[in-house]
């Protein structure tokens, strides 16, 4: 329904968004993920109409919203989109009902209907009975709900969320995350979500666009991005990753290759683009994919030897740091696991979890 085609935006000399193209489907929860300054918020603001692109086309259900080439720019107030700001932007001079009713008043909805719609949407976000509370007396989580109610009350074509959880504490954040997901499924609104938090992105999204320097580094469903990152940036941004050095010994079928490591160990992994036979490569594997057992004298294929350096108890699990092939490898183990510093261990790096990078 929403289509961005080669959209660019510069501020002064810096190109903040660089020829960005993407398409969002009806009812989809779509996330723009990236670190600060990657252009994700600017992209959202261009969709909302708060910034004008310098190039490209933004269209919604076939209606062109912005296209500098034809001097088209539909002002924000005529796009019928909902936006929740990072700061919530709750108007301090209005109470909760006044804030939520504002978009309806702008649209000259009849007072009786305003009352019922405000009540319905406040029920929806769990703020029933808060109508008359002054906006300035609300907690962060309540303000966030008011902002959400205000963005939903006029049934916008698209709901834009700009880091809506970043000002909340961890517990509240997790709770609201679940609520948002349930709410979105219930009302079926299409959401564009901007965040720098990978956990939020992975848990909420149907699809994620990881952004880097104004471009999309990779676009796809959360699992694909996590398990098959196409660039080291995406791999490292989405989660921790251990790295080892090796040389490609043999190209196998199905995008796999066999790699020889220093010390003679042989591992199999999935190739990223640009890997050729005989090349030096970096092997990547996520901590939770590494298997571990006490050294039992057997070191099979897909396995390497190592020594435990330190063992950190984290509460719900433990992190084990192992020195292997002159690299520190971190892996997660259940909290009951019994490993100690200087234990000799065998690490198992299964073929499906190892990625090979030029």
């Amino acid at each position, binding site marked *: 329904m929403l289509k961005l085609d080669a959209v660019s935006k510069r501020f002064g000399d810096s190109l903040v968004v660089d020829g960005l193209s993407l398409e969002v489907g009806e009812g989809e929860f779509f996330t723009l993920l990236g670190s600060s300054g990657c252009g994700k*918020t600017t992209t959202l603001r261009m969709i*909302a*109409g*708060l*910034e*004008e692109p310098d190039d490209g086309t933004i269209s919604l259900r076939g209606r062109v919203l912005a296209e500098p080439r034809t001097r088209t720019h539909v*002002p*924000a*107030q*005529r*796009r*019928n*989109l*909902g*936006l929740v*700001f*990072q*700061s*919530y*932007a709750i*108007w*301090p*001079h*209005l109470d909760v009902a006044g804030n939520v009713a*504002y*978009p309806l008043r*702008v*649209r000259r909805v009849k007072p009786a209907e305003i009352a019922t719609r405000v009540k319905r949407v406040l029920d929806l976000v769990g703020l029933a009975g808060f109508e008359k509370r002054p906006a*300035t007396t609300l907690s962060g989580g309540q303000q966030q709900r008011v*902002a959400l109610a*205000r*963005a939903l009350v*006029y049934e916008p074509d698209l709901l*834009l969320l700009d880091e809506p959880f970043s000002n909340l504490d961890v517990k509240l954040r997790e709770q609201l995350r679940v609520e948002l997901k349930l709410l979105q499924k219930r009302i079926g609104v299409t959401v564009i979500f901007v965040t720098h938090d990978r956990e939020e992105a992975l848990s909420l999204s149907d699809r994620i666009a990881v952004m880097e320097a104004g471009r999309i580094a990779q676009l796809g469903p959360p699992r694909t991005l996590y398990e098959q990152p196409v660039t080291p940036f995406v791999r490292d941004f989405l989660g921790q990753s251990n790295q080892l050095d090796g040389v490609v010994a043999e190209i196998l079928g199905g995008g796999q290759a066999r790699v020889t490591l220093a010390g003679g160990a042989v591992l199999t992994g999935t190739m990223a683009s640009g890997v050729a036979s005989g090349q030096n490569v970096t092997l990547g594997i996520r901590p939770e994919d590494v298997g571990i057992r006490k050294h039992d004298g057997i070191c099979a294929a897909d396995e390497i030897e190592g020594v435990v350096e330190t063992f950190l108890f984290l509460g719900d699990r433990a992190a084990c740091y192992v020195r292997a092939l002159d690299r520190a490898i971190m892996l997660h183990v259940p909290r009951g696991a019994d490993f100690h510093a200087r234990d000799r261990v065998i690490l198992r790096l299964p073929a499906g979890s190892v990625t090979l990078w030029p």
Partner: protein
Amino acid sequence: MRNLVCTALLLVLAAGVIYPIYLLVLDSFAVPVPGGGTRLALDHWRLAWGVKGVSASIVNTAAMVGVTTAISLPIAIVLAWLNTRTDVPGKRFLTACAWIAFFLPTVPVVMGWILLLDPDYGLVNMTLMRWFGLKNPPFDIYSFWGIVFAHLLTKSIAVKYIFLLPAFRKLSAALEESSRVCGGGAFYTLRHVVIPVLAPAILITSAVALFNALESFEVELVLGTPWGFQVFSTKIYTLIRAETPDFGTATVLALGILAVIVPLIVLQRIYVSGHSYATQSGGFRVGVTKLRAWRWPIFALLALYALALTLVPLTLLLLGSVMRVFGYFNVANAYTLANWRSVLGDQVFLNAVSNTLILGAGAAIFGTVLAAVAAYVAVRTRYAGRSLLDFVTWIPACIPGVILSLGLLEMFLRVPLFRPFYGTIVILIVAALFASATSGVQLVKSNMIQLGVDLEEASTVAGGSWFYTLRHVVLPLLRGTLLSVGILTFAAATRNVANIAMLVSNQNRPLAMLQLDYVADGTNESAAIIGVITVLITCGVALAAFALGGRRLQG
């Protein structure tokens, strides 16, 4: 030592601010008894309202203040919004012109406009009459609306605009952007979000503007006197300057005005304390509303206004100063330098120049010291009387200059200790000093609060005494601020007439007062020359202030 200094300061301030008002109250009840002496009675309060022009002056004041505020406040709000939220060109230029208008002495600017809008010879009137074949001049600056016009093109809008700018700048752009996303257009957003959220700031600005408007004296004196229009300040002035000064009526009128102002201050305080919205800026850069097709037409309007504030009246003033007869552009040999030669060689003028410079320098030096110490005591000490001290420094801003001046006049006439100073420059320095005390103390205070107490505590821990720390840490760090206070006080002292009008005699008369006297005598050519010179002095000071401290303030 420390408490002694604080108490001495409090006493000095109280003597300069509270005691004169106390004397006003006392005088308003003092009725002379035949055979010398006085008794306390209500005679003045009963009779004053019947004195010719007193009641009318109060009505006139209310009308003038009300109409001027009603016009200037919306314009100032729109200007501040245009500056902070849109892509209109020339923002810095507009702000600079507003600051210049803030610094310019009023009478010279008004004289410039007289040359354009005088019904007998005003250039605009003459031109329009010729073009459209009118029989009567379309404009008359010597009228109610002429006075309103003069206010709008001197300080009225400029002051409010300058006051509103920081509030608009601090307002989080997200509050407006969310309104736009919700469907509100630019004007809807301005009316339903920006103005309500900024209501406390706008109210404070209005209050400051109200006190400013009540200060107004010169404009009405110049443009109102010829047709018998008086506001309370000019009425008090004429009562005191009459052949037989009527102190009784003047004090009653002054206290009557105070009786209206004080509740207003209290109401405003109550409202503001209940409505302080935190409008912190929301991280992201301030959004800019594109004016598109309106951009250049709006710029043209702004530029016109900015020039009308500054260049237009000053150019005409300069022209007026070299005219053989002020205002007569079409006579043969209209221009001459003879006026300049005679004024510059006049001993009266030279005395006035030296009086002005002594007045400005004296007020600046003592005013800065006073502001620094008072601010320090209020912010940094636990001196028991510090809130009283803070309150006393607020009073001058809330009391019209003419009333303070009347109180000081009474004090210098009645207290034997002070009587020898009557007629000297000292009395003017004292008046100017207290008139600027509020702004000076507030400016130093806000900077001192930002400074943080650690720097001073570090000095104390290192072994520095209180006075040593003040001298070697606090004052050096505040050097820039104190310089700004000094410059502002200098400019105010050389420019303002209302605070000193009643205290001036032939010996201590400064330029600003000499100019008014020339206008009253009808020697407008000489008045224009003095206008040019005072403008040069204040502009020089304003430029210095802008270069030193204005960087943070300009747009």
